[in-house]
C-alpha cells in the first residue's frame, strides 16, 4: 500500500487557495476536472475561470 502525503491547502492573503499534492476536483456538474498537481482556487467569487483563480481578486480589491 502506498502512503500518500497530505494534500496542502494554503490560503493566500487577499487571494486564492493554493492546492498542492494528490487530489481530485469534482466540478459543479459532478465531473472530475483535469488538473495539474498544483492549482489555485478562486476565493473572491469574481474569477471568470471559476473554480480557478484568474487574478480578478486584485481588480476587485478582495481583502480577506
Amino acid at each position, binding site marked *: 500500500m502506498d502512503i*500518500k*502525503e*497530505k*494534500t*496542502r*491547502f*494554503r*490560503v*493566500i*492573503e487577499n487571494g486564492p*487557495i493554493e*492546492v498542492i*499534492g*494528490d*487530489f*481530485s*476536483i*469534482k*466540478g*459543479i456538474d459532478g465531473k472530475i476536472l483535469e488538473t495539474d498537481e498544483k492549482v489555485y*482556487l*478562486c*476565493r*473572491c*467569487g*469574481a474569477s471568470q475561470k*471559476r*473554480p480557478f483563480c484568474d487574478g480578478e481578486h486584485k481588480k476587485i480589491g*478582495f481583502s*480577506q
Partner: protein
Amino acid sequence: MDNPNDRQYTNGEITVYWKPAKCIHATTCFRELLEVFNPRNRPWINMQGANTEKIIEITDKCPTAAIYWKYNKDLEELPEVSTDYSKEVNPESLHTSKHQNSAAAKISIMKDGPILVEGDFSVTDSAGKELKPMLMTSFCRCGHSHAQPFCDGTHRKVGFSDD
C-alpha cells in the same frame, strides 16, 4: 450530551435529526429538495414536503451527517442515547471513501456554494502556518463569509451564482 440546538422532525414514519454544529453548508439538502429543506422557513425542515423515500435519499447525501434519519418503529426498540450517534461521521468512513477515489484529498465544487474538502489534507495561512487539523471542511467561494477562509452560508444571502 445532546446539543440544545439539535432538533428533530417526523412525518410519523421516519424522524430526521438536525445537528447544526456538524453542518458545513455543503447545501446538498436544499439544492436537491427545497420542498423539505428550506433554510428560509421555520421550522426549516418540512416533513410533509416530499414522500419518505425522497427524504431518505436526500438526507443520506449530507456529507457530515448534520442531518440523518431513523425509522420511528426502530426508535421504539432502541434506547434514546444510541440513536443519536448511529450515523456519526468517523475517520473510518472517510478512509473507505478515499479508497474508492485514490486521491489523498477529494475536492468538490458545490454549485452556487463552497469548496468541499475531505480526506488527508492540511490547511495553512499564507506563511505556511497550519490553521487547524481537520478531516473535512468547506472553503468560502463567494468572498463574503464572515468565517474566512471557511464557509458560513453567507453565499445564499449575497446570491452567489455559478450561472
